[in-house]
């Protein structure tokens, strides 16, 4: 019995009396809703503003010190530059950032200017960043980087994790529920590719003209297939896969799992040396290979201490209170970007070690201009591409 069997069975179990229970409960719940005493909107706003003022004071009193403490931490350890930008006014290296916030998906240009592509829940770059593929509800949307829509595919169920194949980008894959679908780069020929996948993003094997894809199947195995669906190999990573990452040279696949052991595979499916191991109690939040190398960079969160560390090639280069959410390299591999929700900052770290540093504050507001109230911290989903 696979995990898919468990899921399918539990979703198919006839639940007795469901509609009658819903009808009876709706009567009770509707009555409770009708007789509640709603707080007027302005009251909520006032409360929100008071809360924000308190939070702002706390941030000023408490959260800035973490930001400064990072600066202090940096000053203690490196002789390089440290720059705190007033806002996201520039990127420290070439390429464009792709960011997903509550407002939607944004492209950030090297001069710091930003364009909101639209209200999309997720997005990723096409090869060489000529396009962005975004998802929202049941729609897969291919866009120009200025937001113009090139084509869309609409499915009956929610879609996610759309990923464009390497240059020349003949295909894209995306998840629809528990299935994986494939569509041609011009939006034609949408079809089912795999019937049963785990809810994590698939990963195309890098390399011009290649159409080899790694994905996690619902039974917890990692599978590598051709774009026509032929399976090349599969492996049991030992714990539920959470992220699939290919090295730039396409020779190593890292499988980040829900456990402490994160295996590495060669392109033919054999083990590629020792697995990456993280200490008990630490969750890997994000991982990447440093461009052009097989050095693994990852962020690990320790729930017991409430702290995160960023490790590159086995060396811890950064740590902080809370979660350091993203591990995104600049296209030339000289900068590593992470998001730090607790301090509401983006941290650009110049490598190797941390020989320089750019801190961007007020990130939530940066990607929710004019917004009020609590806002989720944005995700950094891409930094592309190498200068041609």
């Amino acid at each position, binding site marked *: *019995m696979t*995990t898919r*069997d*468990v*899921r399918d*069975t*539990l*979703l*198919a*179990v*006839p*639940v*007795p*009396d*469901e509609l009658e*229970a*819903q009808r*009876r*409960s*709706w009567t*009770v*719940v*509707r009555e*409770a*809703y*009708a007789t*509640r005493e*709603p*707080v007027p*909107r302005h009251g*909520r706003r006032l409360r929100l503003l008071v809360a924000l003022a308190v939070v702002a004071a706390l941030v000023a009193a408490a959260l800035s010190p973490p930001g400064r403490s990072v600066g202090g931490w940096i000053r203690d350890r490196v002789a390089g530059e440290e720059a705190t930008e007033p806002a996201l006014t520039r990127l420290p290296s070439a390429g464009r950032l792709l960011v997903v916030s*509550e407002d939607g998906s944004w492209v950030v240009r090297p001069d710091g200017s930003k364009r909101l592509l639209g*209200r999309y*829940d*997720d997005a990723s770059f096409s090869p060489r960043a000529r396009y962005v593929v975004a*998802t*929202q*509800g*049941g729609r897969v949307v291919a866009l120009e980087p200025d937001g113009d829509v090139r084509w869309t595919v609409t499915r009956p169920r*929610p*879609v*996610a994790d759309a990923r464009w194949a390497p240059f020349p980008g003949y295909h894209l894959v995306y998840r629809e529920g528990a299935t994986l679908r494939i569509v041609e780069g011009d939006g034609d020929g949408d079809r089912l590719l795999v019937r049963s996948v785990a*809810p994590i993003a698939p990963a195309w094997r890098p390399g011009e003209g290649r159409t080899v894809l790694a994905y996690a199947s619902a039974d917890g195995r990692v599978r590598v297939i051709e774009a026509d669906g032929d399976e090349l190999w599969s492996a049991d990573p030992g*714990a*539920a896969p*959470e992220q699939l990452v290919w090295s730039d040279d396409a020779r190593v696949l890292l499988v980040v799992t*829900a*456990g402490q052991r994160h295996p590495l595979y060669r392109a033919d499916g054999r083990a590629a040396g020792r697995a990456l191991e993280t200490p*008990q*109690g630490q*969750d890997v939040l994000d991982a990447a290979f440093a461009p052009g190398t097989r050095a693994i960079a990852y962020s690990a969160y320790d*729930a*017991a201490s409430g702290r995160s560390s960023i490790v590159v090639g086995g060396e811890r280069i950064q740590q902080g209170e809370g979660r350091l959410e993203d591990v995104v390299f600049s296209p030339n591999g000289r900068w590593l970007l992470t998001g730090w929700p607790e301090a509401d900052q983006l941290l650009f770290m110049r490598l190797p070690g941390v020989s320089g540093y750019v801190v961007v504050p007020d990130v939530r507001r940066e990607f929710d201009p004019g917004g009020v*109230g*609590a*806002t*989720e911290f944005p995700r950094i989903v891409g930094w592309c591409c190498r200068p041609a």
Partner: protein
Amino acid sequence: MAGAGRDERAWVRGAQDGSASDFEALFRAHWPRAYRAAYLVVHDAAGAEDVAQEAFLAAVRALDRFDSARPFGPWLHRIVVNRAIDWTRARALRREVGAGEAIDDVPAEGRGDLATPLPDDVVTALAALSPDHRAVVVLRYVLEYTPGEIARMLELPRGTVNSRLRRALDALQGSVDREEG
């Protein structure tokens, strides 16, 4: 689930502003999964109805304090599953009914071939687990949360969630194997 987020946030904001239709949309969107999750933890239809209904009543009480920028589902599901665990423990203390009895009422529909575990077998095996293990299975496979999210919802270490999932799956597998043997 992320795809429905925008509609959901609009429903929450509308419900906060007094729109009964938005509140009804929220209820109808979330009832089926909330009730199914509750049923699979408590294994009793009346108990599941109580649990799911109580969760929605808690939602009504907390509606004005709820941050509409956050997803409603995880918040509701956390209430449902925690109340379901409490309900099951309380029932065990009262010795009202054995864990496996109520599910005998489940109609045997959707039976597959012999190689596929029958739904009743899996449900029976699920009933044999502790409520804490059932809750983790339901959160993972019915409500489709990640182990990390489950850990936060149940305020457990993630390792505990993973080990409960592993043990639960082993137990389900073992029970099905015994049924087939």
